[in-house]
């Protein structure tokens, strides 16, 4: 019904290798882009932009980063939130030290700083894997947060240890700070999300992504066919941390505005991003989007439905929300252990064959 495959033939290598091999998906992609860039900014109010769409996009970037590490390279990490904190604190230090630096450049440089830190903490992955690596990255989580709350240099010796984002603008438009318009914030996040998703998609289907997947599927076999595990694992850590760092920088810079390492980037946040990746689908770009939507957007929608539309008490709704999200996680994982992206893949297969399933 949705997919009309007749006439969808591939005549060249390029067309066979494209990101969206099915014509309908290509159209859908352009429609989504048009809606995101042209329609949504027109129709969306501030509340939707600032408290639903912006955090969703930031978590998408973080989930993409973690997905590269876990889903594509098979390296388990529990230090995501700490790497986000690195991005946030790098943004703070860079922008307070060089106020004239364009803020987008600051976000990208923060990603690079996080990359370097990620490689450092990725070194143990050369020796250990699986749950043991998870424990090593857990050390990163605790060590980095301790560092950011302990040493005054990181928060410019403010008396409370909080870092606050100063107001920064680009091309005369205020991007960060309280006076930034929701449209500016939305477009900043959108540009970064689209660019990062594009980068992730193209990295993972290129040579680099294939070496990562070779390591994931069987590292010894990969080594025998000529994949250098040192380069593959560390590049995965570097790219993953870059994504996570940019997510942290955006979370601090344009979304929260003031951050405290222990509260905003605690172990809970590491788990949250990990669950996004697992529920969304390991090794899938779409999965990162679905997982972030499930764990960031759905709770807010439930709150709007229960509290604002049905008028239930806020605490009851919050408890119900925890139960509903918990139950849905179990339902999704029973229905499809490989995540929501795999669920969608099955649905798509069925739709493509419909109405002649045999």
């Amino acid at each position, binding site marked *: 019904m949705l997919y009309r495959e007749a006439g969808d033939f591939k005549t060249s290598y390029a067309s066979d290798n494209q990101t969206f091999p099915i014509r309908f998906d290509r159209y859908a992609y352009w429609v989504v882009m048009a809606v995101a860039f042209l329609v949504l900014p027109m129709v969306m109010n501030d509340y939707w932009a600032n408290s639903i769409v912006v955090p969703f996009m930031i978590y998408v970037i973080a989930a993409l980063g973690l997905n590269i590490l876990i889903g594509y390279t098979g390296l388990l990490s529990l230090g995501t939130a700490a790497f986000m904190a690195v991005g946030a604190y790098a943004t703070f230090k860079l922008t307070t030290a060089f106020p004239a630096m364009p803020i987008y450049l600051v976000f990208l440089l923060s990603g690079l700083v996080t990359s370097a830190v990620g490689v450092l903490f990725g070194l143990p992955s050369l020796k250990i894997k699986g749950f043991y690596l998870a424990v090593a990255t857990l050390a990163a989580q605790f060590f980095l947060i301790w560092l950011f709350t302990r040493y005054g240099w990181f928060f410019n010796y403010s008396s*409370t240890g909080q870092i606050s984002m100063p107001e920064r603008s680009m091309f005369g438009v205020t991007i960060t700070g309280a006076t930034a318009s929701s449209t500016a914030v939305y477009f900043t996040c959108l540009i970064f999300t689209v660019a990062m998703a594009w980068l992730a998609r193209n990295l993972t289907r290129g040579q680099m992504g294939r070496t990562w997947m070779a390591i994931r599927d069987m590292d010894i076999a990969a080594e025998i066919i000529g994949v250098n595990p040192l380069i593959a694992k560390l590049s995965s850590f570097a790219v993953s941390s870059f994504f996570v760092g940019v997510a942290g920088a955006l979370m601090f810079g344009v979304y929260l505005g003031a951050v405290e390492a222990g509260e905003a980037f605690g172990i809970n946040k590491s788990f949250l991003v990990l669950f996004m990746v697992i529920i969304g689908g390991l090794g899938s770009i779409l999965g990162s989007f679905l997982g972030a939507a499930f764990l960031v957007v759905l709770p807010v929608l439930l709150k709007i439905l229960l509290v604002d539309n049905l008028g239930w008490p806020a605490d009851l709704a919050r408890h119900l929300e925890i139960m509903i999200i918990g139950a849905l996680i179990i339902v999704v994982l029973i229905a499809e252990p490989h995540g929501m992206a795999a669920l969608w893949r099955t649905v798509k297969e069925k739709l493509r064959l419909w109405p002649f399933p045999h």
Partner: protein
Amino acid sequence: MKMTTFAALLAATTGLAAPAVAQDLHFPMLNYRTGPFAPGGIPFADGYQDYLTLINERDGGIGGLPIRMSECETAYNTERGVECYESIRGDNPLILQPLSTGITYQLIPRVTADGVPLHTMGYGRTSAMEGETFPWVFNYPANYWDGASVAINYLLSQNGDSLDGKKIVLLYHNSAYGREPIPTLESLAASNGFELVLIPVDSPGQEQSSQWLQIRRERPDYVIMWGWGVMNAVAIQEAANIRFPMDHFIGIWWSGSENDVVPVGAGADGYTALTFHGVGRDYPVYDDIQTYVVDRGMAAGNGDQIGSAVYSRGLYAAMLAVEAARTAQELAGHAQITAAEMRNGMEHLSITEERLTELGLPNFSAPFDVNCQNHGGGGAAMMQQWDADTQTWSLITDWIQSDRTLIGELATADAAAYATENNITPGCL
């Protein structure tokens, strides 16, 4: 796919529901009745809501206009706090009281840009007492630096006006909240000649054995605690375990609720804490709350917190908000006040003993005035002590004044730094 349809539907319904222009005063409540800090959040929320309900039921609102309450659950989480703020800021909120220092730091720039008064009573950013730099933020009647100073003044009075050579430990929640008193205590340590030892406890603070081992090693004369939530009860339990003299263990007002001492049982007997308002149910206002709120079945929550220490604080916060709204109505000359008029009312708030008696809260609070320069009130506090046999807090001192000269200097310096960082020209609105 189903999810997106659902989202689209919701978007359509909520997008269409435009805020109604009604004749009422909107007092949003950013509560936390869930999460690890709920034991502190619930009594405060109950006290706040019950007092507003009382005003609605007994007086028909403020100046004839009913108070409209809306509740948003923050779970003491900054991201949820921001989400809550975004959801109410278009709905004419008159006053925000988030009961969280972390959320306060998020909200200070936002409320300043949007023009919504923020009242952080006994928490938040201390230097916000400098009203010229923080025109939209208020932290009367007392702040953390007052708390630190009052605690030291109390200890001075206990030790013949000298703390020379004494050793005092600050056991603090390792967050913006807990780190807040450090500059004041360091400065007081230098001027009074005592040694200050800083011992942080990471949130939420269920595990403190290493900290208390360190306290045993340090052998301090006094321990001052800046804790919240589960951290308080754990610390008091650990102190009881090492037989630390309880009357040498002083908590800030957020570490002085029933929930903190009851779990420790007899071991907590004699524990002292600061408070900037009276304790217990022996105030005439509680009779009205019984008649107009509880007996009508309108009590907030389970109704089992009435009269507890943090409930009293929630009630006090609501009382100050109502009084500020009343002042604002008088100044504006009409009942339907805006947020800007509410801010003006808060800036001209004057709490006198006569007014407190009229409100059924005689001697509940120290009288204080707010003005454009000083958003921090008077800064006096009392000491309360826990009696484990009768399960009550009792006040053991009269009002102790904080060292406002020193605090003023520190706050001016901090506010000036904030003003330069954020390009603010201090001045009265």
